[in-house]
């Protein structure tokens, strides 16, 4: 049932450089809880991959392992064909966007966006110009000196995205970034994210529990199931970009959504059967 992802994505993007390779990595907590069974996942450069599944399916765990925020219990993780620890600082161009904006409430928007550059010791003048560029990309150039609490939830999320873009990442990891926003704001940010992805030729791994968001955004959807967390299926969304919101009302969109929905139901049914047995 699982298609060979490397070949697929290579055909899709016309390139075959893997940005991320997860080689039977798994995570078991000391109390015996299996957060994630051994998984295999390859993400090619330039792909937009969505990890889709219910709560507790290990999608955030997988993302955090790729980010280096969590150590896998066993298995290997390669970024650009190298173990994460062996990567030089300059090669380690990844950025992480959390579920909440995760901004420093005491610092201005500009200072928040400048944080990763300050931590890396980038000279002030260069940092400031990069910050303004990043803020312009997310449409917040006018709010550089505002404090986060004076911005709406959607705008705070944009600041968080600007902070991730300012390091000029190759790989963008996003953990349900728009989950707490209202639907209209979310649609707007989804569309803007796609534009950024295309313009900057990013590789994105995006975690969500929204089927519609997954179909709208991704080149490929990785379906996951809970108890224990595992990958069940991968679905290629073979649709051209740019995608507008009109795509969301086409029969093809509905067909993809139905397919993902069925897959999710099947997976949760399987889990229930196993738990009963």
């Amino acid at each position: 049932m699982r298609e060979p992802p490397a070949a697929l994505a290579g055909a899709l993007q016309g390139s075959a450089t893997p940005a991320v390779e997860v080689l039977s990595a798994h995570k078991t907590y000391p109390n015996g809880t299996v957060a994630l069974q051994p998984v295999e996942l390859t993400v090619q450069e330039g792909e937009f991959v969505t990890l889709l599944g219910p709560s507790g399916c290990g999608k955030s765990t997988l993302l955090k392992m790729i980010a280096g925020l969590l150590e896998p219990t066993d298995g290997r993780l390669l970024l650009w064909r190298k173990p994460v620890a062996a990567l030089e600082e300059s090669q380690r161009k990844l950025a992480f966007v959390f579920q909440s904006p995760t901004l420093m409430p005491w610092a201005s928007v500009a200072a928040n966006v400048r944080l990763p550059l300050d931590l890396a010791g980038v000279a002030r003048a260069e940092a400031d110009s990069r910050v303004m560029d990043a803020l312009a990309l997310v449409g917040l150039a006018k709010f550089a000196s505002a404090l986060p609490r004076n911005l709406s939830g959607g705008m705070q999320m944009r600041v968080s995205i600007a902070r991730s873009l300012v390091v000029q990442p190759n790989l963008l990891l996003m953990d349900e970034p728009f989950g707490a926003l209202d639907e209209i704001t979310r649609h707007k940010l989804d569309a803007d994210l796609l534009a950024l992805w295309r313009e900057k030729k990013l590789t994105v791994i995006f975690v969500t529990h929204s089927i519609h968001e997954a179909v709208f955004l991704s080149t490929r959807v990785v379906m996951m199931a809970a108890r224990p967390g595992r990958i069940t299926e991968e679905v290629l969304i073979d649709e051209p970009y740019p995608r507008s919101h009109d795509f969301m009302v086409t029969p093809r969109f509905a067909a993809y959504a139905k397919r993902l929905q069925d897959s999710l139901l099947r997976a949760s049914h399987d889990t229930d059967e196993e738990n009963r047995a």
Partner: protein
Amino acid sequence: MTRVAAFASPRVQRILYPALVAVVLLGSWQALVTGFKLPPYLVPSPLLMFQTLVTDWQSLGGSLLVTLKITLLSFIAATVVGVLISFLFVQSRKIETALFPYAVLLQVTPIVAVAPLIIIWVKDPTASLVMCASLVALFPIISNTTLGLRSIDPDLQSYFAMNRASRLQTLVRLRIPSALPYFFGGLRISSGLALIGAVVAEFVAGTGGAATGLAYQILMAGYQLNIPRMFAALLLISLAGVGLFALMAWLTKLALGSWHASELSRD
């Protein structure tokens, strides 16, 4: 209508309401003393208290300065030492676990019991008083600042770790700003405690005739049955405490006003 609105504004209310309470209290105090013809060596009237404050200002004012000096010195000492200890505590849980009980021990030992020892051991009277008062003011700073330094957004902490921030960077850019609201809470409590510590220590030391702070004035006025003067000194201590609290509130507003929820307007 506008006049009513002016009275209803929270700024005016904040001064007006306590002032009304003061007028009512002082008025009834004055009325009770005059009505029952209470002698001034039992309960002086507020008028007499203010008169004494003016006529004895020469010595009372000097004593106020002495007490304020000891209060401020010990408050600063407690703040510096307290913050340094907190930095030490957050370096590792082991250090905190090992040392925290002793911080508590410091807090629960009554200062009146320790003060005579310190006064014997430390020759310089000012230094001994400052040491006593600092001990009283120290604990809230340690416990609040430690709590604050630990109260950081776990996602932000992950973000710092992911960007390979050094210990120092994390301390300066994340822990210290996160701790500020707690730290200022600690300052408010400690400023009052420093004053109490200064007065208590002076009471213990003052019998030796070394100090001339407000506590000494109260003691002497007690021996001489000069009760109006005792009240005047008491009034000065209370006013000093209120002043310190207001100063801390102002500092907090200055530091946190723009971003922290505790300082946002609640109108």
